[in-house]
């Protein structure tokens, strides 16, 4: 009855803050944003712990709006997903033309005098078992390169969407006490991170326990920051970044968005480049 009328507001007294599990601000360094935004407010995200099943919110981190509050350009995201599935696809469909099909060198019947249609080969496309006109030829690679800044904007748009949909979490690091898969399963379940989770760390050498724990679980995947891509982010329900990975990804994307010489990146892609 009353719950409908009373607004659900939480008033936090200074004493409550001292009792809360929130770490004191001195322990965790706040983030310094490179290229300070001139109009948009920085986005905020909780820094969570990863060493216990129950969630502890350690601090609030600020995120650069240019990376984490970009326009949700689904058109650019679609370009990226299409490119990621096509650049490694090779079509092996193959057909033979009338000259590749075996036989058919002899005129099947004389030109005149039989009352039948004139034909020069039994492998003509008109015949059953004949060649195919303009059929698919194998191998047909579909490789192409997406423009560099379409790839960059694809990443910012996807990261922004993940954050806006509450599917992006930041943790301190990937250290867990056991290598038991049940620990990660329970942790993900209790924090409602959705069935599939993508953990992104700064480098590709990760702590032993998390690698052993997620090895047998197919919907928990580990990825270094350099492997971050649009398709994987969309494929997994939740994206979990370590703080180091967050710093690295943000700084990399910001340098590409702000650097003055983008010519080497925007030049035509050459297959034999070093």
């Amino acid at each position, binding site marked *: 009855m009353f719950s409908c009328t009373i607004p659900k507001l939480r008033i936090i007294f200074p004493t409550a803050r001292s009792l809360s599990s929130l770490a004191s601000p001195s322990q965790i360094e706040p983030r310094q944003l490179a290229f300070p935004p*001139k109009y948009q407010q920085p986005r905020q995200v909780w820094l969570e712990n990863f060493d216990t099943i129950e969630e502890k919110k350690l601090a609030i981190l600020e995120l650069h709006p240019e990376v984490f509050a970009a326009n949700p*350009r689904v058109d650019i995201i679609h370009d990226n997903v299409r490119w990621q599935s096509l650049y490694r696809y090779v079509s092996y469909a193959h057909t033979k033309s009338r000259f590749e099909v075996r036989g058919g060198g002899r005129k099947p019947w004389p030109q005149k005098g039989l009352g039948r249609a004139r034909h020069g080969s039994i492998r003509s496309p008109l015949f059953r078992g004949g060649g195919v006109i303009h059929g698919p030829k194998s191998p047909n690679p579909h490789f192409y390169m997406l423009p560099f800044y379409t790839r960059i904007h694809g990443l910012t748009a996807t990261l922004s969407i993940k954050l806006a949909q509450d599917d992006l979490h930041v943790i301190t690091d990937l250290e867990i006490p056991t290598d038991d898969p049940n620990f990660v399963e329970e942790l993900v379940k209790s924090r409602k991170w959705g069935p599939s989770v993508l953990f992104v760390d700064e480098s590709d050498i990760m702590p032993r326990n998390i690698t052993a724990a997620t090895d047998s679980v197919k919907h928990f995947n580990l990825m270094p920051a350099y492997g971050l891509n649009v398709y994987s982010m969309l494929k997994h329900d939740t994206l979990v970044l370590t703080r180091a990975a967050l710093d690295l990804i943000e700084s990399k994307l910001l340098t590409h*968005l*702000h650097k003055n*010489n983008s010519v080497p990146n925007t030049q035509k892609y050459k297959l034999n480049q070093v």
Partner: protein
Amino acid sequence: MASIRTYLQRIITKTCFMHPRVYNSPQIRNSSFHSSKFLVDVEVNTKYETTKNPEEWKYVERLLPVTTVPEPKKLPVYASGWKPQGDDLKDRPYFIARTRNHMMPVYLEIRQRGTARHTIIKKIQGDIWQLEKDLRPFLEDLLKPKNLRLQVNEFAGKICINGDHVNAIKYWLGERNF
């Protein structure tokens, strides 16, 4: 500066002197990739010393190319007529970000072999419809007998206007400190 340059010149002349093949050698063309010899490390006979001196490093750093266009110094008037963006734009309903080169993102797009000209304003943040409402009377005055044809792309943060109004829009934005 000058000392570094002479030092480098000295090294170059030295290497060329010591390796005449580097300087003046016939080009080697092997018959194929497979028959060509493997690359070997070229022995460098030049004497050099490695130092770690922050005082000297300052001069090296000065020669390295800058990766971003730095924030320009604040001056009352610039010789080129360029104006920096205002500082207090946070309370505006909309915002047009400068490009990485501190220019206004207003572009002319020429299509159909020069017959179709469109002005495009990019990097619009905030209430794009309010910007359109404010910009409309200014452009309608310019085009008086003709109709204004203007398209707002809220999704991408762009406004496309038919015709070449780049300088007019840049002037209008400059008046408002964008």
